[in-house]
């Protein structure tokens, strides 16, 4: 048994079960934490993050792509982009990893109950939002209408697209996909709109007075989507942004993730747009 105080500092042991490639540089890794971690990890709220250790590489903050399974299995969608994630992509199934967390704030699920939820994901931003989406779909009776708008640069970079289409086909949510540009795809393949997310949002009519919006994507996306959502009538306190920073420690000490006087690892990574307005470097 680990001492409780050490839980936040010392990773639990974990094993890489398998991986599923989602695009040329992104894959979904299923990770099984040691049994003693399950109680801690079961506190996960969609939007929170864990610190994933890859031995020999280091630690990276990752927001799980779904809630932990009953056996504690975590799904982590990771792009190969730095030395730790590169090493993870080379790690064979069965290898040892480490997990700390969950850390930070998640989406305010209690507050969102009964309300329509609009999820806006750009690129890899679908990963953190997928855990929220899965939670919403599993508890549909407790939320209003669920809409996902997902934009990627081009069709082959769209993650989970078959899976998302299958979920939408069941009738639980409205799904809008868009790509920045569409090179030729084989006939009969997946179809989606061409254009940027804010454009898609402009033509969308929804109950803005009651809707909660959850946004995650590349840095450039937040500003224009927040502006567009506010123009549509979504209050800044109901626009929830999941931000990316390089959390080194995850527990408010290393100071790499500060935005203004807030720390992404403690006050975020899910912020209300209204709370970020005075912070020039936030978005």
């Amino acid at each position, binding site marked *: 048994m680990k001492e409780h105080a050490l839980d936040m500092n010392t990773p639990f042991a974990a094993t890489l079960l398998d991986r599923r490639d989602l695009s040329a540089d992104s894959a979904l890794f299923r990770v099984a934490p040691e049994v003693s971690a399950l109680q801690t990890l079961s506190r996960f709220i969609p939007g929170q993050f864990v610190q994933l250790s890859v031995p020999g590489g*280091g630690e990276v903050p990752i927001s799980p792509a779904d809630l932990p399974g009953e056996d504690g299995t975590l799904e982590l969608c990771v792009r190969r982009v730095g030395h730790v994630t590169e090493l993870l992509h080379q790690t064979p199934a069965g290898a040892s990893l480490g997990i700390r967390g969950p850390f930070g704030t998640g989406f305010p699920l209690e507050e969102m109950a009964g309300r329509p939820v609009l999820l806006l994901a750009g690129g890899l931003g679908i990963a953190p939002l997928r855990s929220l989406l899965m939670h919403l779909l599993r508890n549909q009776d407790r939320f209003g209408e669920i809409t996902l708008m997902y934009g990627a640069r081009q069709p082959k970079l769209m993650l989970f697209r078959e899976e998302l289409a299958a979920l939408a086909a069941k009738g639980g949510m409205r799904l809008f996909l868009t790509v920045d540009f569409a090179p030729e795809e084989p006939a009969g393949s997946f179809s989606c709109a061409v254009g940027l997310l804010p454009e898609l949002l402009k033509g969308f009519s929804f109950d803005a007075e009651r809707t909660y919006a959850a946004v995650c994507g590349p840095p450039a996306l937040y500003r224009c989507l927040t502006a567009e959502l506010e123009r549509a009538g979504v209050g800044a306190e109901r626009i929830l942004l999941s931000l990316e920073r390089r959390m080194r420690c995850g527990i*408010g000490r290393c100071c790499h993730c500060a935005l203004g006087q807030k720390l992404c690892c403690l006050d975020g990574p899910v912020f209300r747009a209204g709370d970020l307005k005075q912070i020039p470097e936030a978005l």
Partner: protein
Amino acid sequence: MEKAFLKNTLLSEFLETLRLFGELHGPTVSDTGVAAFSPLDHTSDLRLDYQRTQIPPKKYLIPFREEILHYSEGNYWQNHPQVPEIILFGIHPCDLDGIAYLDRVFLGDRPDPCYADRRARLTLVGISCEPDDFCFCSGSREPAPFDLFLTAREEGYEVSVSSVKGETIADAAKDLLVLAPTAESSRRAGCSITAQDPQLRFSDNPLWEKFAATCVSCGACSVCCPTCYCFDVREYPALAGGGTRLREWDNCLFVTHGEVAGANFRVSRLDRLRYRFLHKYCGFTPLQGMTSCVGCGRCKKVCPVDIDLRELIESCRKPTPERP
């Protein structure tokens, strides 16, 4: 009122008594002329006339590079540094304040095991000081928590005790101490620093542009700051398997500090300067609103382009000019 008093002539013997409780460290001057806290192999190495050491005592609590974790065969465990008992003698009140702040950060609601280990083995013996042109502490505060504190008087030191550890040491040295009437403390005027209010005026101040135009992002101000503690984490695998995770001082003046995959949130020097001083004077969660500058003057002393923070602080104090 009477208090324990240590005569100048007995200081050396007092230091020898301190040695009974651990390794004695204190202010010294190196061969190259740099003031530093280091082991006092010989009591004569002690330089009580020092103004400020280049590196503050934070190095005893957060070493520049430190092992925090080990891992092997899929298991991770905390490193517990093997540190001796250290008696750090001759710490000025500003540096005691710095340690008090670090205690809040590292021993607060999420205690750091490595820091806690080192802190538990560090005995703080403070000493009063005389400010120079670089100092800007208020000088009127009660010193931060210490074990023993020596206030310089004519012919010796008034000895204050504020911990069990301190009592034990004072007890062992009781033959060297006499009771003497306490003298009136002289309060010196200083440029005291308080949390900047309103904060917006702080962040929008035009002086930032002036500072950013000359700042070379060397990071010296942060290295020398008694309350700058931000760190980076690195991992070193061993060839035979397993490995070690280290943390080392990082510096928010460096351009890499605000990097994330594919972006950087503090690209300009102005962004980074403002970031550092927002942290320093206004605080981050969970110490928001708390000023961590202790007025030691190191940042101004070491700045190669003479950036003087007091300019900024003074300008923030002035009322905003009314718009015509």
